[in-house]
């Protein structure tokens, strides 16, 4: 005998309807949005969705992480390397709250992501039911938009809206909370993609007047500088940026998350901005007469002391988010447009130019930085292995074509500084939030997004231990991520600050560490530990050549500090090269 549900479905089919449960409809919506990879963790309230996942195994690959935070970071990294919307699932209560760090991380870095959380049955909401939490309230300040769905019939419309909001305008995370009963109700499934929300218009008509006045300023500039950020990558404007820079001959400096938007081996590359960025990019910001900021938000780590930031420059700001204009730095010309469109139009209106004398100043700064910082860091003659030489070697061995992921802290700054990026979207890091524990799960997401490229994640011994359970995910799906632990037995960046600003009082930063190789091996992951410089190159080569997952622990100099550094409260031009 057929069940009531099946009979109902057959009758509906005869009537040209497609009856299914809310959970089924949710997965069909995701497929319609082009989702083929989901990260997540099941639990009571989300069980109807997980049950249905088995029916769509050929269309949606679900990766079970070992903690919901890992799912959120993996989804973000997947999005950063593929340009697609990253998706993660979690159950109600603790499942949902465990996502929050990852959501906040995606929010600060404007990464298009959709988080689906389950909620207790709608009649129980507000009763402090088992595993009930107000995730809508909790996630409100860290999502671009969020919405609770209590009826199955609302699922298609809300999911369509979620994807539209996540991937348009200034991109970002959206959370949809679906009650368990909504997942179980039957609906007649129809899906229509969202292309219009009355109160939300992400498309801006080209700001021609502003762009043309910017072009005049650029044409008359003597020491212009482009500051390009993550917005360039999010807009897919790398080619436009390059064309604009090459036509005008203006040097390009990148923010931390802007890395890989412009090739580091280009003669116009001016280096990385910010606290541990390059000497020339920082010092010469304060000598520039015109600054063209594209898809960046003048974060405090980029500007240093705002009172002494870029005072000689007229500032042209190309930005999709209107709220960023004048937020930190007063802007002379605001171009409220998508970077790609604006750069395209701007390039047509600027004259061919070159600034050889000005560019030579960057090269002089580069030489100073090389002698005082880069050379001792990447080519030390003696002493313990330095983080910089590890990264530079990986850069050489992979010809700058690998996808590089980092955790947060010294490992991150060193990876950003010494890897020579040549291709767009090959850098994944936690920028705005600075979330320790990001590196391993993000590495997993990046590897799944880039099956054809080597993916290497640089972690510190501290950050690794915040999410190291994700080795289980690597093991389960045989994810060929290469994990490099730069082990200095300290929370390195905090220790560096204690060293510099707290009289070397190392409060709670020393880490007695476990045997990382043994841990990796317990997860059946090939692993090795090295301590000597003479083993470094071979060990890295072996790691890169390994087909499957690999973990390489490298003991590095304990008390090395990352330089250059703009001390808190200092101007970008006061960046220090040495201690």
């Amino acid at each position, binding site marked *: 005998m057929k069940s009531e549900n099946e009979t109902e479905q057959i009758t509906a089919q005869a009537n040209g309807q497609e009856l299914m449960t809310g959970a089924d409809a949710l997965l069909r919506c995701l497929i319609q949005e082009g989702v083929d990879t989901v990260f997540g963790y099941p639990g009571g309230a989300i069980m109807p969705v997980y049950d249905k996942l088995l029916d769509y195994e050929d269309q949606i690959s679900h990766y079970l992480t070992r903690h919901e935070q890992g799912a959120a970071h993996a989804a973000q990294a997947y999005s950063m390397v593929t340009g697609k919307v990253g998706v993660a699932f979690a159950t109600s209560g603790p499942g949902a709250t465990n996502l929050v760090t990852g959501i906040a991380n995606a929010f600060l870095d404007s990464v298009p992501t959709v988080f689906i959380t389950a909620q207790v049955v709608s009649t129980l909401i507000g009763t402090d039911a088992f595993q009930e939490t107000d995730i809508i309230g909790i996630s409100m300040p860290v999502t671009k938009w969020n*919405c609770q769905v209590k009826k199955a019939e609302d699922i298609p419309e809300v999911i369509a809206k979620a994807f539209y909001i996540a991937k348009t305008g200034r991109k970002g995370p959206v959370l949809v909370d679906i009650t368990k009963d909504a997942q179980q109700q039957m609906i007649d499934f129809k899906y229509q993609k969202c*292309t219009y929300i009355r*109160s939300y*218009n992400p498309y801006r008509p*080209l700001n021609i007047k502003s762009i043309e006045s910017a072009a005049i300023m650029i044409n008359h500039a003597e020491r212009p500088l482009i500051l390009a950020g993550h917005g360039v990558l999010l807009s897919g404007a790398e080619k436009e940026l390059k064309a604009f820079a090459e036509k005008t001959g203006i040097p390009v400096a990148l923010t931390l998350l802007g890395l890989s938007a412009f090739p580091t081996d280009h003669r116009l590359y001016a280096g990385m901005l910010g606290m541990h960025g390059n000497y020339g990019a920082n010092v010469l910001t304060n000598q520039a007469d015109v600054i063209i900021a594209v898809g960046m938000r003048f974060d405090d780590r980029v500007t240093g002391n705002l009172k002494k930031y870029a005072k000689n420059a007229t500032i042209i700001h190309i930005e999709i988010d209107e*709220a960023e204009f*004048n937020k930190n730095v007063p802007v002379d010309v605001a171009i409220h447009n998508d970077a790609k469109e604006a750069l395209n139009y701007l390039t*047509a209106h600027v004259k061919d130019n070159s600034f050889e004398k000005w560019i030579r100043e960057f090269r002089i700064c580069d030489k100073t930085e090389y002698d005082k910082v880069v050379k001792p860091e990447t080519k030390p003659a003696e002493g313990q292995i330095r983080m910089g030489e590890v990264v530079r070697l990986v850069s050489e061995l992979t010809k700058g074509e690998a996808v590089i992921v980092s955790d947060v802290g010294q490992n991150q700054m060193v990876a950003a500084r010494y890897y020579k990026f040549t291709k767009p979207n090959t850098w994944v890091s936690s920028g705005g939030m600075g979330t320790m524990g990001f590196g391993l799960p993000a590495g997993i997401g990046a590897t799944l997004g880039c099956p054809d490229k080597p993916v290497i994640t640089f972690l510190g011994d501290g950050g690794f231990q915040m999410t190291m359970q994700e080795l289980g995910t690597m093991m389960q799906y045989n994810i060929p991520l290469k994990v490099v632990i730069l082990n200095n037995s300290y929370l390195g960046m905090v220790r560096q600050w204690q060293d510099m600003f707290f009289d070397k009082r190392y409060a709670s930063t020393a880490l007695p560490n476990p045997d990382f190789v043994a841990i990796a091996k317990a997860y059946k992951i090939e692993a090795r530990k090295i301590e000597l410089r003479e083993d470094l190159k071979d060990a890295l080569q072996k790691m890169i050549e390994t087909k499957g997952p690999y973990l390489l622990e490298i003991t590095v100099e304990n008390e090395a500090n990352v330089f250059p550094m703009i001390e808190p409260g200092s101007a970008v031009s006061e960046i220090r090269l040495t201690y």
Partner: protein
Amino acid sequence: MKQEYTISLFTEDHIGILGQITIILTRRQINIESFTASESAVKGVYLLTIVVTTSSELVEKVAKQMEKLVDVLKVFVHTFDQIIYQEIALYKLPTKAMMSGNIIDQIVRSSYARILEVSPEFIVIEKTGSKEEILKLLDRLEPYGVLQFAKSGRVAITKQVKELHSYLKEMDEANLNNNKPAEIPV
């Protein structure tokens, strides 16, 4: 320099929009001095009127953050001279206060207030006006034993000529052109 600003927000009817707006003010440590919400002249569009005291720089920043919210249609910031505004207040007094001659009646008349209800135990007086006028009346009634006093938030009408529906029309037009690629002159 700090001064009083009236923020008018036109929003969609989305649960949680109030929370999103207060979060923006809370983050900047801006206190909400008065708050009212009602449906606007356009069906389905809500008008929230918030009064804050802050600097012009900060009010502009929070207004931009508010307008950025997906469910917010439009945000306007006004100084007091750009709007016509009123508040409403109710005062409850013991009925025996009326026994002391017609003094209460005189106060009510001269303040352009009115008596809303009289019962054996209490009377209720209603006054519409500016915050100052409302508080002045409270002062005058105080000696007769005010039992309860309640005042609304501000409702405001802008003096500007351009109305919401023309903004909505513009937004719709911009939205309809949305997928057209920008024309690149050669």
